[in-house]
């Protein structure tokens, strides 16, 4: 339900006109700037034109490849202007721009695998070595964007190692048992 314009006057509190619920709204100046969205202007004769839109006036040069970009194509990243191609290919310093939208949490996989497999314990014979392998192979892979420590990886490896050791001991014990049926 969109909020009425006049409700923004009331010191952050607005009442929904349909259900009467009291809402708290923090409005910011970007609300006004949105109306003035970027519009590429036509390039006059002799003026620099955008690389991708030859009819549009260039407003900046890509800080990575130097191509001219119009107002529509200019991508602002970290105080610099990039062209869409450089951003898409993550060329040069664009690599530094953190544009990831998802990450697989291998540390959680390594930690959960040996623990969850205990519910069906025979599965641990496969899950424990898998946890160790994942922990070692993915050790240097970036973790979550917001979580820093590697304790889950370490704990996963430790748990996997403990379970693997348990299996090794059990197999060795069974092999060492005196075999019957010899008379």
């Amino acid at each position: 339900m969109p909020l009425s314009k006049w409700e923004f006057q009331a010191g952050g509190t607005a009442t929904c006109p349909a259900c009467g619920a009291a809402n708290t709204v923090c409005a910011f100046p970007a609300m006004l700037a949105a109306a003035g969205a970027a519009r590429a202007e036509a390039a006059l004769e002799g003026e620099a034109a955008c690389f991708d839109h030859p009819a549009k006036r260039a407003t900046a040069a890509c800080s990575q490849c130097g191509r001219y970009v119009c107002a529509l194509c200019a991508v602002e990243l970290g105080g610099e202007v990039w062209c869409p191609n450089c951003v898409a290919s993550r060329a040069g310093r664009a690599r530094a721009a953190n544009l990831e939208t998802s990450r697989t949490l291998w540390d959680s996989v390594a930690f959960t695998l040996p623990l969850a497999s205990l519910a069906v314990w025979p599965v641990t014979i496969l899950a424990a070595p898998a946890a160790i392998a994942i922990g070692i192979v993915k050790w240097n892979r970036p973790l979550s964007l917001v979580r820093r420590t590697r304790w889950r990886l370490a704990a996963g490896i430790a748990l996997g190692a403990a379970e693997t050791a348990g299996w090794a001991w059990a197999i060795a014990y069974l092999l060492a048992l005196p075999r019957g049926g010899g008379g």
Partner: protein
Amino acid sequence: MAAEPIRYRKLPGHRRGIINASSVWLGPDHLLLVKSQRFKEEYKRYYLRDIQAIAVARAGRFHISSRALALGALWFASWVVSLTYLRLTPFVWTAGPLLVIAWLYISFDRSCVCRIYTAVSADVLPSVYRTWTARRFLRAVEPRIREVQGPIDPAWLDVAGRRVGPESAPAPGMLPLTDLPSILEPAAPGPAAATPAGAARTVASDIFLATLLIEAALDAAGFRMNAPALSWLTAAAAVAQIGAAVFLFIDRSRGRLRSAVHKVAIARLIWLTVVYYIGSGLNAITRTAMIPFVPANDVIRAIDLAVSIVLLATGASIVWRAGEEPPPSLLGNGS
């Protein structure tokens, strides 16, 4: 050369479920919404310069967080222990319903939906779903956004205000209001918009108050007679009362009821639970003749009668006062 990792600061609010989790973090120039599905995290960035508004709307949220699950597990463990240590039984059976009532109260009355608006999106922030978290979240985020964007021009608000009255041209340098984003567009008039901002009383609130009166009358009658029919009537009134309270909560969460009579219902439900377990405990003690006691039922009945009358008076007063006041619409303030 490896890029310098961005340092994020965690903002208030964290929604933790069994599988899903969500949180919001503050970066140097953006907010990072993190949605996690156990083995995978998804990120969405809202640059501080692009955020148009953050809106917090009261709404029922019935999320069972991992913290609530932990409390439930703790209660279950206590129940198992109480099978051996019988002295714990009354405490365990009192704590259980109290926990449920507390969860219901928070879910109904202290919950909200927080949305963040940009020019191209209007997304819910799942981690901000309790009102106290929303307040802390806004306190942490608002100054940072204002620092980046500056304050809203008060002249614009004047222009927006004048739109309520007769048509007027925008002030010099101001944008025409028709160009503003959809968040600001007035709602199209429809059947829902014609409804005022909730009524002072609903059928559920009336039934609830009526059951309070009936219970008080039954309690009073109980001093003079001890017929089994009276017990059955009291139980039926209690069931009707609980049902009316549930519908009353629904009315309140959907905005059909604007008076705070739901708080009386919460108090009554808590009292019903307490009185039930106290009564059961005292009856058990009297039956086993551990102490020479006393008409326990009469004592409880007297207290219950007093509580019913107090709650009835409070509820009636709340409804009456809400009926006297105009609906809390800003249009009505003449602004």
